[in-house]
């Protein structure tokens, strides 16, 4: 069951990443690049959980999740700074 859920999550994240990529192509708003990259990294996170089985090193897969959230935070901060400047 967990493999199914992780696979579904990987696919959902990939689709979300593609949507944000499309939004970037249409608007050229940098925020969407950050969101697209973040969701692609989240997809890799769930893919990594599904294919790895070593409990001792599993936290490195979760580090990918942290990278994704940091990308989102950086994107939002960047957008807010651009909004204040321009």
């Amino acid at each position, binding site marked *: *069951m*967990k493999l199914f*859920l*992780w696979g*579904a*999550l990987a696919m*959902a*994240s990939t*689709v*979300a990443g593609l*949507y944000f990529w499309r*939004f970037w192509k249409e608007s050229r708003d940098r925020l969407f690049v950050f969101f697209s990259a973040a969701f692609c990294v989240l997809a890799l996170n769930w893919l990594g959980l599904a294919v790895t089985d070593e409990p001792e090193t*599993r*936290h*490195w897969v*979760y*580090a990918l*999740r*942290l990278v994704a*959230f*940091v990308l*989102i*935070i950086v994107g*939002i901060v960047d957008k807010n700074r651009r909004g204040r400047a321009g």
Partner: protein
Amino acid sequence: MAEAVYMLCAVASVTCAVMLLRGWATSKARLLFWGSLCFIGLALNNLLLFIDLVMVPSMDLVIIRSAVALVAMTTLLYGLVWDSK
């Protein structure tokens, strides 16, 4: 090291949820609304991850937390498909 990663994931995801909620409260953009709901769910997923792997390692919450994340992502996909222009 692992505990630090799980805690940072929880903190970062809660931060994302709060920032998106504030953005939605300011702009009322529909995409931000769906994104906020998604990241609230992902924040809950990461809080459950920390509880599962650090606080109560004897219990296995992987199905529950993965289901919460899947509901969160489905919510975002719904918003992307139906409410993004």
